[in-house]
């Protein structure tokens, strides 16, 4: 599902030894610098994917087969997002490890275990649907983090982050579900990632059933995440009257 982590906030340095404060201050600056680099690199990476997509579409005149033109950068930058779980675990980003882990791993799952693993779906248009959704979302999200770290967040970026998802979320989910659905017959035919009895581990796993269960899990999960984002939007962007703006 489209990953939308919580916004960053600054860690408050508690009162204490002057030296400790300076040490923590230095560590804080270091982690801010690192996060800045990380977010800039990710923004750049997804921008590259966006540019290549547009360029190839204009060159070929069709959506078909566009996946192959961005396959490598997509895998690289989407997998790189696993670092974000580490950021939460170490504490330089104040988000929940579990939530971030879940979001990142669901993306990684779709990238590797479905799209890469089942070669036959790579030609499907549904792949483009979620790739475009992810690309736009990630460009906005990483810019948002970059600007927040620099303490200069343009209203447009904040607005985009909390508005684009309204279309991109359902778009991405549709693409993901259609892709998983398209992979089902191929998985069943080849027995991909599956283990049958008897074997010495006394364990079995049916990837086909697992994919179906994954699709079903979207039903309770997607509305929860979507409405959470809508609530966040109302809270952060507020009502038009609050800003004295005329709509």
């Amino acid at each position, binding site marked *: 599902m489209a990953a939308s982590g919580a916004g960053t906030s600054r860690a408050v340095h508690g009162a204490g030894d002057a030296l400790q404060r300076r040490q923590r201050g230095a560590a804080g600056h270091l982690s801010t610098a690192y996060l800045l680099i990380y977010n800039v690199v990710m923004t750049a990476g997804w921008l590259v994917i966006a540019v290549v997509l547009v360029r190839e579409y204009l060159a070929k005149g069709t959506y078909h087969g566009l996946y192959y033109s961005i396959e490598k950068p997509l895998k690289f930058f989407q997998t790189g997002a696993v670092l974000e779980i580490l950021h939460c675990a170490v504490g330089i980003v104040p988000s929940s490890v579990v939530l971030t882990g879940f979001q990142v791993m669901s993306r990684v799952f779709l990238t590797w275990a479905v799209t890469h693993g089942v070669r036959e779906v790579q030609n499907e248009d549904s792949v483009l649907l979620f790739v475009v959704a992810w690309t736009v979302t990630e460009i906005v999200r990483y810019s948002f983090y970059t600007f927040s770290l620099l303490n200069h967040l343009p209203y447009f970026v904040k607005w985009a982050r909390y508005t684009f998802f309204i279309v991109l979320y359902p778009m991405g989910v549709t693409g993901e579900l259609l892709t998983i659905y398209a992979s089902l017959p191929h998985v069943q035919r080849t027995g991909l990632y599956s283990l049958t009895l008897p074997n*010495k581990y*006394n364990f079995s796993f049916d990837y086909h059933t697992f994919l179906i269960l994954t699709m079903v899990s979207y039903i309770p999960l997607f509305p929860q995440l979507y409405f959470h984002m809508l609530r966040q939007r109302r809270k952060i962007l507020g009502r038009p009257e609050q800003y004295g703006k005329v709509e």
Partner: protein
Amino acid sequence: MDALALEAALPKRAAPPPVILPPVPVKRPKPAKKAKKAVVFFEVEILDAKTKDKLCFLDKVRPPPRVLTSCRLCLSTDPQWYPARQSIRLDPKGKSLKDEDVLQQLPVGTTATFYFRDLGAQISWVTVFLTEYTGPLIIYLLFYFRVPFIYAPKYDFTTSKHWVVHLACMCHSFHYVKRLLETLFVHRFSHGTMPLRNIFKNCTYYWGFAAWMAYYINHPLYTPPMYGEQQVTIALMIFLFCQIGNFSIHIALRNLRPPGSKTRKIPYPTKNPFTWVFLLVSCPNYTYELGSWLGFTMMTQCLPVAFFTFVGFVQMTVWAKGKHRSYLKEFRDYPTLRSPILPFIL
């Protein structure tokens, strides 16, 4: 504040002591009543921890006040707030006061403000334990006897041809029967209740894993352990050893606490050799439990069992570390050689 306690304890023949104004909050409904004799009355107001609404007001609370009992009675006028779900505390985000706490020893003036937090619907520990342990017992047996609709129809009500499967069933059943009996006759619980939603969480965990393990162990296509009888025999020894060990620890812990009390003491090794592991470990009951399940994993050579052992180990380590930390906090002379769950390692 000590002066107040002192004031209250002064014998009657002393001259009326100078009135010491306690630090009272500015917004008060009534002024603190001044004592006519050398007895100080307390007032207690109970606010909701979240909304700060005034829920109850007790005046003329005589020391030594069983204040908490009075508070609980007052709050129980709302029938859905039975005592087990009332958390009364000095600070909205602080720890709950215990029934034994005496008002005079708390850092309050003569007008005490307590905060009430609803802990949600509660259920007794005994109920939860009995339910969560009976499930695996029955579920495993359903798979063992190959009740219909689990495996292919031709296997209904058949029995496995591997003797290790029968042994595994006996061990698994023994384990849960032991747990049920311990819940009824051995354990002395510190808390009476836990939140109601825990029963759903716990039962899902125990029942779910029991079904998952039992499905594979009792499967018609089950593969017996690689090293055959040797592997199973050693595994059985480990399992039995750890079951006895675990039981010994439970008995030792029970004997630390007189019936009906909630005292806490440092556990020490007893005459029973199985308790000597207390020298090295704070929570040997968890150590032995891990050992039992490792034995069971070796006996059945089944990946779901290994998984269950691992998840249980992670959870027990979290509990053991917490218990170890609270031992260290509570007892100055706590033995330094002890680790939470694994000697010298964890």
